[in-house]
Every structure is written in structure tokens, then in C-alpha cells.
């Protein structure tokens, strides 16, 4: 073999990179899942939500979420047309067991399901001092619970209040967008359990995903767009009073 010094110098770093990825191994499950083919988000259709709490219970079951902590929850807004900036918001036990019956009055009511927005430029991942939380190559904000120190910087950094410290594991915990399900071709537990289709998992890299047709034909907004977090939980029919 005849290698010039120039060729050797080009080959060495390439070989080092290749060897690193050999050492790193491959993710354990979902052999047919290619991360670079997906960019996950969620569509939340507010006019369809009936506040039944199915999503909250399904999430708790699927992900062993501790009581009185939530990866997803539902809020009920009660807004008067004169004072939009001070809505009356309730979320009894995250809406897990539904909501008290509302009597019609001169204000408007609606439900808003909340969850991690899986931001593309998420503030929560930027503040982690140890690299325990990150945006995966397919756009899901995850927590490496073996690496997390439990310092809760990320809990404070999330503008949407979507993180908590797990009471027994003492590490940050949050919505994984049911990563263990979506990598197998299933939808998330909350979407599976939603009886009205108010929540729909969206793959923004899949040109055949109905999300594209929906986004083209509806006025869709994200929460707190002024934060420029690149949020990927898209809300249809989002009222200006929602915070």
C-alpha cells in the first residue's frame, strides 16, 4: 500500500471518527427507525377538546407519571370579551378526572391541552450544565436520567412549565412525546386515548403527514411565540388569552 503523507493526514481523522462511532454502538431498539427521517411535533385542535382528561390519564399510565405531577394537562379558560388579559383558568388535578360542569354565561369557555412543545431551540436544553437534556436528531426534547443531576435549572428555564423533578428518582422528568412508541410506528398515548382527535402526532419531515395540509388551511399558532423557542406543538383555534 502506497500512502502519501497528504492521504494519510486526510485518512487519520476519518478513521478516528469511524472508530468512535463503532465504540458508541447503536441505539438498542427500533432497528428500522431512522432518526434523520423524522421531525416530530404535535397538533392540538382546541375546538375539538371536550376536557375529558383521557390524555392526562393515558399519559400517567403509559409513562408512570407520579400523582399530582403532569407531562400533559388540560386547562379550562373562562374569558370575558371585555377583559381578555385576565382569563379565569382552572385545571383541577390537571384535568385528570374531567372538569366541573360549567353553566352558560356571557363569557366564553374553552379547553387547552398543554404539554411539552418539543422546541427546536429549547431554553431547557441550553441551561443544562451536564448535557443531560437535549433535542434528539428527530426533534424530541429528552432527558438522560442516568446523567441528570436534578439541579432543576431546566425546570426553571422551560417557559411552558412542562418539566418537574421526579419525587423518587430526583431527576428531571418530562414528556418524551412517547419516544418509545413513536419509534415503533405507534402514536403517543395521549393521541391514542383522545376520543375526539383533538391531539394528533405530526411528523413534519414526512410529506404525506396530514399536518402539512392542515397547516396550509388553518390559522395555527404556537404558545408564547415571542419566546422564539421554535415550539412544535401547533394549536388550532388558539385564543389570544391563552398564556
Amino acid at each position, binding site marked *: 500500500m502506497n500512502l502519501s503523507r497528504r492521504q494519510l493526514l486526510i485518512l487519520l481523522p476519518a478513521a478516528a471518527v469511524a472508530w468512535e462511532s463503532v465504540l458508541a454502538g447503536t441505539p438498542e431498539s427500533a432497528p428500522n427507525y431512522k432518526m434523520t427521517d423524522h421531525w416530530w411535533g404535535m397538533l392540538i385542535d382546541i375546538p375539538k377538546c371536550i376536557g375529558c382528561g383521557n390524555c392526562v390519564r393515558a399519559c400517567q399510565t403509559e409513562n408512570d407519571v407520579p400523582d399530582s405531577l403532569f407531562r400533559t394537562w388540560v386547562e379550562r379558560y373562562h374569558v370575558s370579551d371585555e377583559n381578555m388579559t385576565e382569563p379565569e383558568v382552572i385545571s383541577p388535578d390537571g384535568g385528570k378526572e374531567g372538569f366541573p*360542569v360549567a353553566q352558560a354565561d356571557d363569557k366564553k*369557555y374553552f379547553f387547552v391541552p398543554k404539554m411539552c412543545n418539543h422546541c427546536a431551540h429549547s431554553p431547557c436544553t441550553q441551561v443544562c450544565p451536564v*448535557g443531560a437534556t437535549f433535542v434528539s436528531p428527530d426533534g424530541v426534547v429528552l432527558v438522560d436520567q442516568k446523567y441528570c443531576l436534578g439541579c432543576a435549572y431546566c425546570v426553571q428555564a422551560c417557559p411552558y412549565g412542562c418539566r418537574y423533578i421526579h419525587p423518587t428518582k430526583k431527576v428531571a422528568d418530562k414528556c418524551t412525546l412517547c419516544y418509545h412508541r413513536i419509534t415503533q410506528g*405507534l402514536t403517543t398515548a395521549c393521541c391514542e386515548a383522545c376520543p375526539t382527535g383533538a391531539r394528533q402526532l405530526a411528523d413534519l419531515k414526512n410529506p404525506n403527514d396530514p399536518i402539512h395540509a392542515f397547516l396550509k388551511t388553518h390559522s395555527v399558532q404556537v404558545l408564547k411565540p415571542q419566546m422564539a423557542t421554535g415550539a412544535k406543538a401547533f394549536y388550532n383555534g388558539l385564543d389570544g388569552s391563552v398564556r
Partner: protein
Amino acid sequence: MSVFKDAGHLFRFAGLFVLAFLIFLVVRHYVVPKSFGQYGHYRGAAIGEIAARPVKFAGHESCEGCHTDEAAKKNAGKHAHVNCEACHGALAQHADDPSIKPVLPDTAVLCARCHTASAAKPKSFPQVDPVEHAQGLPCETCHQPHSPGMDAPKSNTGGAK
């Protein structure tokens, strides 16, 4: 070499620095996980670990694989868009091992959870006051949950509809 005359102490320090740096490299090699930095400033293997968590909701496609008759009935009725586990609960265990029998949901709780009338619900969603509407009768007297239109046998209500 008069420049390095009386400079032995500098070489000893330099040697210590090189040694400390080598120790740092060795420790780093063992302490930093192999997959750290594979995709970014985090442990790449964590992604696989999170993806390997167990599934609790089997997904409606699993259900429909066996329960074709129930699925056909449901998909022809008004509950077509409601997935099986929205009412029946998480049943991946049952899907993996059909000998594990699921508990039938209680319709008194289940129907009311969605269909109890409330001014907060979208107007187009079918809703009733359960007390006034059913007058104490269980919902399935008149409505079959898989196809909730008014097609229950008349014997259930003593002929009244």
C-alpha cells in the same frame, strides 16, 4: 546551552504538567461515556434507552387485528374516530398475552365523562344531562357503546324508545 542553565526546576514543572494532562486524558477516557458527543453534547445511547421503555397502550391496530367484528361495528357508527383504548384503557399486556383478560369499563362513569353537558364543551359535541336524560337507567339500556345510535333492542326499555 547557556539558556537552559539553572532551568531544571522549569523542566520538572513542565514534566508534571505533561503527566497531569496524561492522567486527565486517561481518566476522561474512562469517565466520559463512549456515546457522549455522538449526536451532540449528550450521551447518544440515552436515545436508545428511552426508546426501549415498555409500551402500555397497544394501539388500535393491534386490537383490530383480532376483534374484527367489534372494530367493524365501531367503525360504522358514531364512535368510529374513538380508539379502543380510549374507553377500554391500556391493554398492551392483553395484546401480548390474550389470556390476561381486561376489566370491562363501567359505562356509568365512562359515558358521562365525555357526554355530560357543560357550557365549556364545544357546542357541536353531543352532550346530555345524565340525570334528566337517563332517569336512572344505565346508558347501555338504549345505546350500545360501540355503535351508540338508538338501535338497542326494544326489550331493554320495555318497548319505549
